[in-house]
C-alpha cells in the first residue's frame, strides 16, 4: 500500500466540493476570495529573538526566529544569512510521519523562504559584523502544531510576524540590541483549484480535493515577489491574473488588519 488510509480521499467528497463550488458555495460558507480569520500571537517564545504563533482557522503553527553569529558564504561576504526550516510534527495530523523532512515540509520551508528572501524583507546587508568574517545568521524555524490546510500562508504570516518583532542580540558582541532591519512586508496568499474555481486560503478538505495550488507573495507596493505552483493540475492565464489581483487585495488587508502595518 503506497498511500495510508488517511491520504486516500473520499471520492464523493471531491465530487461534492466540485459541485458546490460550481454553484458558488464553499464548504465552510466563505466566499471564494475570503480567508479564514488569522490570529497572530507575537513573542510566544520569550527566549527566542522573535517568535509568533499563528492560528488560521484550525491550522496552528509556531514560528521561532533565532539570530546567531556565523561566517558568511564566500560569494556574499557583505551579506547576512537567512535559513528557513519547517517541521511537520506527527501530532499535527495523522498523515505526518516522524523522521527526515518530507517533500511537503521541504517545499513549505522553501516557499516561505522565497517569499521573504525575494521580497528583500530583511536588509541582509545590514547584518554584517565584519566583512567576510562574521555576520548575523537568521534562523526561521516553523513548527506545525495543528494541520487544517494552508500551511504555506500560516507559516509565511508567522515568519513575517516573528521577523517584524525580532531583535538582533548585539549585546553579545558588546553593542546594543537593535530590531532586525526590515525593508518590506511580504504576504503570501495560497489558492486551490477545485473543479474550475480558484479558492483562497483552502482548508484541509479543500486542499485534499484540489487539482492545482498556487501561492502568490506580494509586498506592500502591490508587487509580486514570489510564486509557487503545486500539484499536477493546470491553471489558465486568466485564473493566474485574477489570483494575483486577489492576493494583492488580501495581502493589503492582512497587512493592515493582522500585522497592523
Amino acid at each position, binding site marked *: 500500500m503506497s498511500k495510508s*488510509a488517511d491520504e*486516500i*480521499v473520499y471520492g464523493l467528497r*471531491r465530487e461534492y*466540493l466540485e459541485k458546490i463550488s460550481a454553484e458558488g458555495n464553499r*464548504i465552510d*460558507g466563505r466566499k471564494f476570495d475570503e480567508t479564514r480569520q488569522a490570529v497572530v500571537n507575537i513573542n510566544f517564545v520569550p527566549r527566542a529573538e522573535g517568535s509568533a504563533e499563528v492560528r488560521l482557522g484550525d491550522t496552528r503553527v509556531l514560528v521561532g526566529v533565532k539570530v546567531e553569529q556565523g561566517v558568511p558564504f564566500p560569494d556574499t561576504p557583505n551579506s547576512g544569512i537567512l535559513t528557513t526550516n519547517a517541521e511537520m510534527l506527527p501530532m499535527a495530523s495523522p498523515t505526518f510521519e516522524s523522521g527526515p523532512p518530507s517533500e511537503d515540509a521541504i517545499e513549505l520551508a522553501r516557499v516561505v523562504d522565497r517569499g521573504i528572501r525575494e521580497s528583500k524583507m530583511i536588509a541582509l546587508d545590514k547584518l554584517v559584523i565584519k566583512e567576510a568574517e562574521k555576520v548575523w545568521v537568521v534562523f526561521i524555524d516553523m513548527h506545525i502544531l495543528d494541520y487544517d490546510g494552508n500551511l504555506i500562508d500560516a507559516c509565511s504570516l508567522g515568519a513575517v510576524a516573528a521577523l517584524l518583532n525580532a531583535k538582533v542580540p548585539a549585546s553579545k558582541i558588546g553593542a546594543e540590541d537593535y530590531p532586525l532591519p526590515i525593508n518590506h512586508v511580504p504576504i503570501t496568499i495560497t489558492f486551490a483549484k477545485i473543479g474550475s474555481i480558484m479558492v483562497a486560503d483552502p482548508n484541509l478538505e479543500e486542499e485534499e480535493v484540489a487539482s492545482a495550488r498556487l501561492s502568490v507573495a506580494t509586498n506592500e507596493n502591490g508587487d509580486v515577489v514570489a510564486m509557487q505552483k503545486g500539484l499536477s493540475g493546470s491553471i489558465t492565464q486568466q485564473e493566474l491574473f485574477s489570483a494575483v489581483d486577489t492576493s494583492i487585495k488580501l495581502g493589503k488587508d492582512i497587512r493592515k488588519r493582522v500585522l497592523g502595518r
Partner: protein
Amino acid sequence: MDIERKIVLPGEEISLEGMKQGNGIYHENGKYYSYTMGVIQTYNSYANIIPLAGKYYPVRNDRVIGKVIDIAPSFWIMDIRGPYPGFLHINDTPWKNLDQDLNKILRVGDTVFLKVNEITESRQTWLSLKDAGLRKLEGGHIIMVQPTKVSRIIGKGGSMVNTIKEATGVKVQLGQNGVVWLDGPAEKVMEVRKILRFIEKEAHTSGLTDRVKKILEESR
C-alpha cells in the same frame, strides 16, 4: 436511569447499585473501577461507561461507512476508521460476476455503507453489503464525528437524527464508526454539520434534543 449521568475518570471507583458490570468497567478486590474517562449509562440492567473520546472498535452487526483503500483479487480492503482495516469479500456483496475486475465495481476512494459481518479471533474484520439499506453511497458529502458520540446523534429511538432530517430536509446516513454521509443543498448540509459539531461538544449534557430543536427553529 438509576445511576446518575456523571463523568468518571480512569481508575475511579464505581458503585454499581445493583446493576451488572458492563463495558468500560473492571473488577478488582471486590470493587469496580472505570477503564476510561467517560459517562456512566445504564442499559438493560447493565452499567456501561461511554468514553468521551476514542477510536472506533468494530462490533458485529454495526453499520459503518467505509472507504475503499485497496483492492485484492477477491475482496476490497476498506478503511472503517478502526484500528485495523476491514475486508469486503465479493461473496458478501450483491454483485455476482466473479470474472469481473473488482476495480469496475468499487474503486479506491469509493464510499460504501456496510455492516460488520464477523470479527475473527485474530481481529480480522469482515464486512458485508448483504442486508437491507446497505449500498454504495453516491453524491453527497462525508464528515467525521467522534465514534463515541454517534449514539447521541441518533438519540433515543432515532429522535435526534429524525429531528435534524425533518427540519433541514438533508439526507443523513450515520455510520457507527463516526462517518456521516449528508446529501442536500450546500447551505443545509453546512447547517447540519454545525449541529453535529454542537451535539459532539454537548453530548454529555441532558435535554439535548430539545436544544437542537430550538436551534433548528431559530435558524429557519
